C-alpha cells in the first residue's frame, strides 16, 4: 500500500510518499491514522488531535470510516485551498 502526503502534511511527515503494510486490525482510514501516529513524532505532528487532515483512497475523497482493504494508494492532505 502506497501512502502519499501533500502540503503541510507532507512537510510535517518529511516525505511525499512511502510504501507501508499496516497490521490486519487496521481496517479503516481512521484506524490507519491512529496506527501512523504511533510511528513517530513526525506522524504525531501531522495527525495531531485538532489538525484537520483529509484522506483519499485511490484518488477519491473518503471519510475516516472508509475501509482500506484493497486500497492501492491512500493520500493524506489538508483541506483544499485551490481555485
Amino acid at each position: 500500500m502506497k501512502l502519499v502526503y501533500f502540503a503541510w502534511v507532507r512537510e510535517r511527515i518529511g516525505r511525499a510518499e512511502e510504501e507501508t503494510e499496516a497490521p490486519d486490525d487496521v481496517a479503516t482510514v481512521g484506524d490507519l491514522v491512529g496506527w501512523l501516529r504511533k510511528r513517530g513524532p513526525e506522524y504525531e505532528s501531522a495527525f495531531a488531535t485538532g489538525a484537520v487532515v483529509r484522506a483519499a483512497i485511490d484518488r477519491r475523497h473518503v471519510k475516516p470510516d472508509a475501509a482500506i482493504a484493497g486500497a492501492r494508494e491512500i493520500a493524506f492532505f489538508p483541506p483544499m485551498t485551490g481555485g
Partner: protein
Amino acid sequence: MAVRLQREPFDLGAEVARLTEGRSDTGAVVTFSGLCRDRADSGARLVSLTLEHYPGMAEEELSRIEAEARSRWPIVDALVLHRYGRILPGEPIVLVVTLSPHRAAAFEAAQFLMDYLKTSAPFWKSEETDEGEAWVASKSTDDAAADRWRS
C-alpha cells in the same frame, strides 16, 4: 467538455474563442477567472503563490465536478482550467467557462463548478510574503458555498 492543468498562464479570450468557434447554438457564455491578489490572507504584501496539486487525482476530481455540473444544467460545453506551480500577483490561477442556450444555466453551472472546485479539487496554496512562507488556511465560507448545492 474539458479539464486542463497547466503551469503556464492562460489567455481568456483565446480559450473562449476556441470553445465558441464555429457554433451558433449557444446563447450564453459565462466565464470566471480567479486572479492572484497582491495581499496575503494575513494582509502582508504577497510576493508569490505556489500551488501544489495531487497529480492524477486533480484531473479526475475536476472531471467528476464537471460531469456533475453537466448532469444538473443544460451545458453545451465547458472548460475547467487550473494552474499549478508559482504564480505572481495579478496572474490568473483558475478559469471556468460554461456555454449554454440559457443564461441562468450558464451562470449557475459556473458558480457550482467554482464552489465545488474550491472545496474538493486537490490543490493547496502556499503564500510567500516578506514575512516568509505559509500555507493558506481553508475558508468556512467556501464550505458554505459548496454546501448550498447539496439538496
